[in-house]
């Protein structure tokens, strides 16, 4: 993907089928306010206006991330839902971008995965060009500016970028929001998670306590929210990079709690 763009390679087969769409996209992109950042032109810009979505996209999630003395902790459930159907009970909603940056994803799974890969590519190119890594703040701004032309379309990406250059946490949304903070929760289950986190999260937590609060928050959210569930992933980011905890089945947590009652 990266090499293809760098060499400006256009697949001939693709071009035959979608020439019309390319011409619309290029006409529109020339009218857009010119941005210094070269937008990838082989993505279907106009998909929302000319082509209706073939099926309802996946949206429901509980993801959360917070900063504490031991670094940044990110946790998410693993259920991918499509209206009432659980399309995948074991999807990955926390995607590593590079060794010291991890992003939680919420919104349309496909959009999130694509844009995370595009962000990873651009960060790697930046690193190669400038011999230093772009800060988390810079990555958040880059993602926000890349998503801006798609504002008003069906694109739905709500990501929390958790990085380590001193530990930073940014929330970036496809509607243009970009916020810096110490604690964020995103998704349909986020209100439930917020209430647990607001009670339990302090700066002075140990890593075990923080992991336990994060797991608890995701567990409670998955209990109440129909669109979150199945497993929980926990990532911990420090100056040495990110580490991942073994994926846990929340069904077992539920039965464990029932037994102890």
């Amino acid at each position, binding site marked *: 993907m990266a090499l293809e763009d760098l060499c400006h390679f256009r697949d001939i087969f693709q071009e035959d089928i979608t020439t019309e769409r390319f011409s619309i996209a290029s006409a529109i992109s020339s009218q857009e306010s010119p941005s210094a950042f070269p937008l990838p032109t082989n993505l279907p810009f106009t998909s929302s206006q000319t082509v209706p979505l073939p099926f309802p996209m996946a949206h429901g999630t509980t993801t959360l991330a917070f900063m504490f003395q031991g670094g940044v902790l990110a946790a998410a459930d693993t259920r991918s839902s499509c209206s009432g159907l659980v399309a995948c009970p074991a999807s990955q909603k926390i995607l590593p971008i590079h060794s010291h940056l991890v992003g939680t994803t919420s919104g349309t799974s496909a959009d999130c995965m694509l844009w995370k890969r595009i962000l990873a590519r651009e960060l790697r190119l930046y690193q190669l060009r400038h011999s230093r890594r772009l800060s988390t703040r810079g990555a958040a701004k880059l993602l926000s500016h890349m998503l*801006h032309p798609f*504002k008003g379309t069906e694109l739905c990406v709500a990501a929390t970028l958790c990085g380590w250059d001193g530990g930073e946490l940014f*929330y970036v949304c496809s*509607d*243009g929001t*970009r*916020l810096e903070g110490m604690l*964020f929760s995103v998704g349909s289950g*986020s209100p439930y998670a917020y209430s647990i986190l607001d009670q339990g999260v302090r700066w002075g937590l140990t890593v075990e306590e923080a992991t336990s609060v994060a797991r608890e928050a995701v567990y409670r959210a998955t209990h109440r929210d129909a669109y979150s569930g199945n497993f929980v992933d926990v990532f911990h980011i420090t100056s040495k990079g990110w580490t991942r905890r073994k994926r846990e089945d929340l069904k077992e947590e539920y039965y464990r709690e029932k037994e102890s009652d």
Partner: protein
Amino acid sequence: MEYLIGIQGPDFVLVAADNVAASSIIQMKHDYDKMFKLSEKILLLCVGEAGDTVQFAEYIQKNVQLYKMRNGYELSPTAAANFTRKNLADYLRSRTPYHVNLLLAGYDEAEGPGLFYMDYLSSLAKAPFAAHGYGAFLTLSILDRYYRPDLSRDDAVDLLKKCVEELSKRFILNLPSFTVRLIDKDGIHDMEKLTLSGEMSGFWFWF
């Protein structure tokens, strides 16, 4: 949901904005700063649609700085306000209009203090006091009643406090704190954040 207010005195402008960054029913941040520093003596307060606010305000901010770099001197508040309005107007009938409501406050050596009210339809008005948001409906009459052109700085802060108290009493949404800044010939000064203590809002609830 969001609230901006500006009060102009004889040699200063006092501005305040709430600190809530919300996403549907959730307050995502309690300490969000809605003021953008355009130059040493000009502030742009910006509320409106989620991404548009930051995109538009930063665009204006960088262009004002560019003007200074190119020409060696800064834009006056009147010029900056008109530049902002022109940009809003240009985008208004494009495919991507910016849905933002603005207050621009500044101090100029030649013209003195200035407060400019702009809205998303790119109207521009220089006003002695102004407010944006649902809170404006509750506070503009207070400003009408108590404003005088020769307000001292303390009087202006008291007037601002009156407005904020009215919001805590009658506005259904919780706006717990406000960033306050004052612009005068010496530049932009950060003032103490206005916060509403829990017991005060609890007291008024029973009325």
